[in-house]
């Protein structure tokens, strides 16, 4: 496991839009997180199989494997990650957030997420992550 401060915590940013990915990685990278990227759910699952991430920031609408399916896969026995998942979507429709929680997400935010908020949430969710079994 990585250190228990925000700095050094490992985040996987999953989004098919390269611009959004760059935005999120720049923000989080700038705040001291070690950031990896994936362009769709499949890539994310592959990445999570090889690395223990401390946080996932996942877009909802993606090709190949969408965000919900991706989070479900992350929570499945195959990957078995219990790290916090923040889902970020452009949609703000009733039911979408519940769908995210059902898949196993821990927070549902609507795009665009203000930069300081993303960093704040990421910092909160990764701080002292080793305390709980």
């Amino acid at each position: 496991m990585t250190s228990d401060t925000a700095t050094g915590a490992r985040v996987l940013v999953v989004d098919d839009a390269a611009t959004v990915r760059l935005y999120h990685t720049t923000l989080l990278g700038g705040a001291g997180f070690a950031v990896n990227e994936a362009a769709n759910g499949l890539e994310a699952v592959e990445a999570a199989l090889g690395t223990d991430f401390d946080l996932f920031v996942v877009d909802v609408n993606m090709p190949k494997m969408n965000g919900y399916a991706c989070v479900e896969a992350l929570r499945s026995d195959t990957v078995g990650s219990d790290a916090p998942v923040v889902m970020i979507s452009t949609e703000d429709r009733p039911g979408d957030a519940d769908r995210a929680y059902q898949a196993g997400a821990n927070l549902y935010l609507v795009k665009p997420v203000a930069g300081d908020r993303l960093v704040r949430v990421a910092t909160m969710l990764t701080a002292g992550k080793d305390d709980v079994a």
Partner: protein
Amino acid sequence: MNPLLAQFLAEANDLLAQVDEGLLQLERDPGDPELVNEVFRAAHTFKGSSGLFDFPELTRLTHAAEDLLDAVRGGRLALDSGMTDDLLASFDLIRGWLAHVTTHERLPSGAGSDAAGLITRLRAPLGGEAAPSAPSAAGPAVLVDTAPDWLAYLDAEWLTETAGWLSTTGSTLRFLWYTPDTDCFFRAEDPLHLIRQLPALDRLSVVQPGTWPAVQEYDEYTCMLSFLVVTRASLGELNHLFRYVTDQIEIVELDADAITRHLSGEPPLRAEEVMTVAVTPVIDTEMAADARSVLHAAHRALTMDGVVTEGTRIRSVRHAVAAAARSLGVPVDLGAAGPAELLTAIDLLAGEAAPAPVAIAPVPAAPPRAEERVESRADDPGGQVGTRVLKVDQEKVDRLMELVGELNVAKNGLTFLAASAEEEFGSRALSRRIKDQYAGLHRIAEELQSAVMDVRMLPLSVAFSRFPRLVRDLSRRLGKNIELVTEGGDTMADKDVIEALGDPLVHLVRNSLDHGIETPDERSLRGKSHTARLTLTAVADGDAVIVEVSDDGRGVDPDRVKHKAYEKGLISEEELETLSDVDAVDLVFRPGFSTADQVSDLSGRGVGMDAVRASVEKLGGAVTMRSKLGQGTSTRLRLPLSMAVTQVMVVSVAGQRFGIPVDLVVETVKVPAGGMGRVLHQDVVMMRGEVVPVIDLARALDMPWSLPETADRPILVVSVNGQRVGLLVEQFHREVDVILKPMEGLLAYADEFSGTALLGDGLVLLVLNMKEVLGLAARVA
């Protein structure tokens, strides 16, 4: 430009191409769900990414397009050509905006009004309703969607009341946050005096410091107050009144929605609550709001129907709740807490974090339709597949090519050095060693050059990509049925060649659509299929690429062409009789010729086939046309695969040097003054039994110069259009490899030059366009 915007523009380019192509395919195959999904996804990604920038019109327009496509995707709408037109027009508008963004980093000023009509049209098939998630989207641009956090200094009751009133009346209020500089009293500023002059003051909140200094330490000349002013005064009035303290104020205009959102998001900070909240730094307030969101999500995740509360899911909820608790300053030990314990902890923590309206707001159950749609998204097929290709800015490659050019130039400098080593310093050995060095450098430079040129190679499909759209639009306008076929799109050529091909190809395709291809009625009269066929083909041929535009239209009538050319005085009566059919067809490339009896608004805009030939020849290529009356026409462009490096022969006239493409040069001769002949006012020279006309280059270029009567005549023999012509010059120089750059500025319209190149000694060389020079000479004579 900031890297994020640069990334967005690059991504947008790909998305636009994807949308265009998808829509056109979709029109042909409206039922294809994968295609719909692909186009929808592109529009969706566009909208999402555009939201990161201050481009509200772009977001709104892509949102409208996305909603329409979503309806098509969900089967609620059938895509018709009118909708396709509107969608294409929307993305065309966006393309224009992005070009503006590329140079100005903002949308053009008229973007809002340009988009408004399209948005209405896009929304019309959906019943014209606005998107539910963008209720304030149609508001004026000055409106701020999110209330600033200082709005918390107004009490919630008043805000609720005000929001109700604003909502009923559809109006807005201006909110001003005024934080006077602490030393403002010394500058004779009196904030309160400023505020009392404000007309239509609705609400004033004076915000005091969270901690007052001790009475003994209180400095009466330090301003510690901030002011929150709510007013119905216009922005103009506000700006005028506060014009001397602009750096101390912040003004936002809010509507009912923004205030309501503010009210439901963060806890209002009422006067009575001041004492408790005052000790908490601002960042913590926001942190608390985030913590509440996390707790709310956890609560929902534990209580929703059919949710899994074991394994990784419950563990992640434990993590999240513990994290939220820690950030609220009340760490909890959740151990192996189960759902029930977690819920208790959440309730406790929620109390700690002050009641958040978000947490208690009932979440409406998902309507079944939304659920179905979500389901159908789960097994999303397709989308674009990421490739392991490095995207390089075109400018960087151009820069690389320039450097290669400069390297070539520097390399060529060594030959000068070798010559002067021998001539000036009399050292043959040194000259040879320099030449050896040159040879080694030359080899490396050549390899580097071909490597860079390889990077510059693009598939012809890039040049072809605009035609599906063009053919579709034009054929609809002309009422013709046309099937476009492209072949050999993967043939590679230098990007400059591809770019330069664009205009000639457009012209040829338009010409074919306009004049070549018949209307469906005419076609069936002639026993042809209703749908005409237009083919774009590319094939590589050695170091050239051949691009052919062919149609199965009515073809060119050689007799009609000949008569027309004769009427226009382009050919003589004798030629009218004797010209072969093939040569007759070639007449269409003559300047001043147009095959159509009426000039159409499509292809007849002052440029003819002569312009096509001229521009292709300027690239060092050739155009030929073959046609069979009644069966079709085929126009063939032959272009060099690469036009980056050209070998030129350097000659000088009147003290100035010019370059002539080496592949035109036949030989160089020096003819004694007496060896020149004259036939019909034309200087000629006899070479191996052939009479070769000789042109005085200086005269053709209108440069004052003449050789001494008795001097030998240096003559450069070139072959242009299969004809040999001698050029009288002052002196021959060497052959050099140069990077030809297109003419710029004042010389851009000087057709006698095909470009400029930098020489090893730093001089700029003008490279001659021989055809034009010969034309000039003919006119001067």
